[in-house]
């Protein structure tokens, strides 16, 4: 899971990889990113609230990697994506250390990261949203 093998699912209609690819295309292009900058949060929110279950494959970490690339640090959702990113990284590998992660190093200091983890309530981080699918 979350590694070499794709997870199976009972529901196929919306695929995490499709959402991830869409987000990636949208935000990897500078002009598109600027054009849609006001709706970045909504796009990710929509995507995370509409993902059908069990697609915890590689697309999920790619999705949050993209999110961290394109979301601004000042953005309200930044800490939430950091938390998801860390949780998935840690689930993939319980020896994962943020200090060895080039992406995070470019985004914030370890102290800033520690502050986010300490101050974010995990009760708001349950990924799947009931009633939305």
């Amino acid at each position: 899971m979350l590694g070499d093998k794709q997870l199976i699912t009972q529901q196929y209609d919306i695929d995490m990889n499709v959402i991830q690819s869409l987000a990636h295309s949208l935000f990897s292009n500078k002009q598109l990113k600027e054009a849609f900058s006001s709706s970045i949060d909504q796009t990710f929110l929509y995507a995370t609230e509409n993902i059908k279950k069990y697609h915890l494959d590689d697309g999920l970490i790619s999705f949050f990697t993209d999110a961290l690339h394109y979301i601004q640090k000042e953005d309200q959702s930044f800490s939430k994506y950091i938390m998801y990113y860390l949780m998935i990284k840690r689930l993939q590998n319980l020896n994962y250390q943020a200090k060895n992660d080039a992406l995070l190093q470019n985004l914030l200091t370890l102290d800033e990261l520690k502050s986010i983890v300490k101050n974010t309530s995990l009760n708001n981080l349950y990924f799947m949203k009931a009633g939305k699918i």
Partner: protein
Amino acid sequence: MDYSNKELTYYLEAVESLRKEKGLSIDDLIEDVTSERSYRRYLNQELPIPLNTLEKLIFKLDVDFPDILIYVLKIKQKPSGIIEFLTNTHYQEYELAKPFYKNLKHYDKDSSNLNTLVFLYVSYYDYLTNLLSLDELRKLFDSSKHFFDDSISNIESLSYFVLYAYIFDNLTYHDIITSSLLEKNFYMSQILLFDIIIDQYLIFLSKKSSYQDDYMKLASFFYQVAHLWHDAYFIYSAHIHQAYQKFLNSDETYLIDLKKHLYYEYMLLSKPSTLYLSIISSMTSISKETIIKNDLLEAIQ
């Protein structure tokens, strides 16, 4: 293994379909496994395919078990929503179960024992959402008992007796339930239902200290099956039982499985689950949130 099941034919159809996709000849596929005559008879459902033969064919195809399951689910899954309803109900996702509940409330499209099982699950949902008392639920279970085979030879009966054990807090059928879970190979023919049933029974058994040996046996089996199929829900459930099994054996690595279970919970569910709270509190007094927060802080040292 002598056991065979007509439903394994679905898996054989997947094997045949993947064989063609891969351009493999029948001769290459069946070499050292079975004869061409038997293979064709299995395909035509003239002969039930033994599980070990099926496993060898899947191995020869060099595909993952999940590939086979995806085929079966896509092609063969009944669109009734029964599995979705049972899964969401089991994992306490009552809002997600609700649309299926409405469709299944007067379900009568299958065999009498499956129809009855669906009716009982709908009633169980009513109980869980406080629309039915435990006494009323027990009465419904008692009056439906004759629909199910107490030798537990099919998955519907297994599901009924596991839920019966839980609702009545009753171990009368423990031995037959355990042997059915371990020996009937429902993990091949009915994996999606099997996952829920074995998890239900393990949660029930985890509270019975004099049945720890059987709990550990079933937990270990479930862990293997879950990893065979690579399904996130199965793995989520299997990790907590693996953790508790290790805890009972004084194996300190139980914490690894517990953390994995909790990370899966955040990724798979819409809200905190109380399903495994009694197991978790048997292992630690630390809250779920603190366990995960501490683990994340460890990653930032």
